[in-house]
């Protein structure tokens, strides 16, 4: 039959030829064996078969559980489990077989092994450096601390430099503590090494997270900018009106509300007249992370109008995308005509601002 199975028939044939009996006899025996094994298990709960192992019936106690669909409490009844414990000789045989056969399984976990070895090495080195008594010695010291003489000698040996005191004073209670103390820091040293591995993994994770955040940030930043430009393309306003001479510049924080009122108060004006940005709505100070588009959004309700803010602050803005924090930015009032993003003058200003950015 198959390469990794010994079928019933094969077993029967092998038995027949080996024991010098007919296949029929072998069959009878094997069947009887199986039958009687079950019978024996039933009556005795444990059957030892020499040269193989022990079959056992293990009782599994009843336990409570919950019906997954209804949430009802149910009791899972106790039952018997069949367990098999191989004979010691057989177990060893099989384990030994594995060592040669599945050696290739070692390779994937090799680094861990290395790590263990490294940890041990480091512990050894640390022990040498600190001239600390190794564990066995410490134990010895503890056990012999009844007579001060011997204890002293043994303590002096491991650390002659650090503590000359024990030699002078035959004080008993202090002596055992000394060798114990240096030992304590040594113990946590062992797990430290593998922990480093986790630190490394954690660091990698943090790096990845930061990278992701940067990417996300970049994405949103781009979307913000592009979004502004898209807005410009999508919402061209057709009204061509100009600003009426409005009252004094009000540095009020509710710029938006004022904006809404404006269109009703404006009157018609011929198109090609250069715009000025004398009327100041509010003066805003650039804060960390702020940008013209946001200020435009805040005061005009639309990011697309940022070029006007640039135009009103040309002198202090060599590059509209790089503004030092704290720079006061004058936010000009917008006339209705200015709200038309298809207007040539607007386009010109924007063009100019963009050129500055690119330079």
């Amino acid at each position, binding site marked *: 039959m198959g390469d990794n199975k010994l079928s019933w028939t094969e077993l029967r044939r092998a038995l027949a030829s080996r024991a010098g*009996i007919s296949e029929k006899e072998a069959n009878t025996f094997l069947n*009887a064996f199986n039958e009687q094994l079950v019978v024996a298990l039933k009556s005795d709960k444990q059957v*030892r078969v020499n040269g193989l192992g022990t079959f056992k019936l293990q009782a599994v106690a009843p336990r409570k559980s919950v019906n997954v669909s209804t949430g009802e409490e149910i009791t899972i009844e106790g039952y018997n489990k069949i367990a098999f414990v191989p004979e010691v000789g057989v177990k060893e045989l099989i384990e030994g077989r594995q060592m040669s056969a599945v050696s290739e399984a*070692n390779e994937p976990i090799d680094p861990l092994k290395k790590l263990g070895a490294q940890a041990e090495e480091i512990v050894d080195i640390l022990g040498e450096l600190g001239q600390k008594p190794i564990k066995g010695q410490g134990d010895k010291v503890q056990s012999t601390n009844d007579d001060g003489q011997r204890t002293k000698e043994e303590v002096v040996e491991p650390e002659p430099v650090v503590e000359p005191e024990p030699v002078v004073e035959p004080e008993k209670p202090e002596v055992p503590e000394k060798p114990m103390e240096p030992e304590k820091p040594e113990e946590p040293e062992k797990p430290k090494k593998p922990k480093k591995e986790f630190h490394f993994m954690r660091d990698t994770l943090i790096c990845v997270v930061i990278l992701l955040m940067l990417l996300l940030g970049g994405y949103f930043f781009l979307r913000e900018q592009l979004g502004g430009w898209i807005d410009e393309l999508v919402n061209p306003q057709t009204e061509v009106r100009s600003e009426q001479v409005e009252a004094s510049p009000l540095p009020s924080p509710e710029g938006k509300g004022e904006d809404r009122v404006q269109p009703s108060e404006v009157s018609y004006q011929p198109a090609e007249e250069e715009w000025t940005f004398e009327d100041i709505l509010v003066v805003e100070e650039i804060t960390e992370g702020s940008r013209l588009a946001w200020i435009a959004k805040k005061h005009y309700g639309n990011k697309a109008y940022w070029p006007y803010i640039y135009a009103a602050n040309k002198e202090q803005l060599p590059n509209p995308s790089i503004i030092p924090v704290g720079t006061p930015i004058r936010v000009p009032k917008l006339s209705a005509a200015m709200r038309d993003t298809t207007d040539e003058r607007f386009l010109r200003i924007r063009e100019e601002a963009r050129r500055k950015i690119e330079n």
Partner: protein
Amino acid sequence: MLTKDLIGLIANASGMKKKDVEHMLSTTNAIIRENLMAGKSIQMQGLGALEVKARKERVIVHPRTGERSVVPSKSQLVFRPVANMKDELKKI
């Protein structure tokens, strides 16, 4: 129950001599061992299968000292009973 008792049972049931049964049983076990060593699993009709299972190498941590050590990979002999036998013995 020990092997001797099992042999008695088998002899009774099959009508064979105890001595023969003993011989056959030891031969059977020898065959089974050899085949297991060769990496084969033994299918025993009505009983189950004896298999060699590979156990992977793993790292264990000493709960008190935090010491890590590697348990080498090994293989284990396991017995997988047939569903029939399982059910039969669930309740006695």
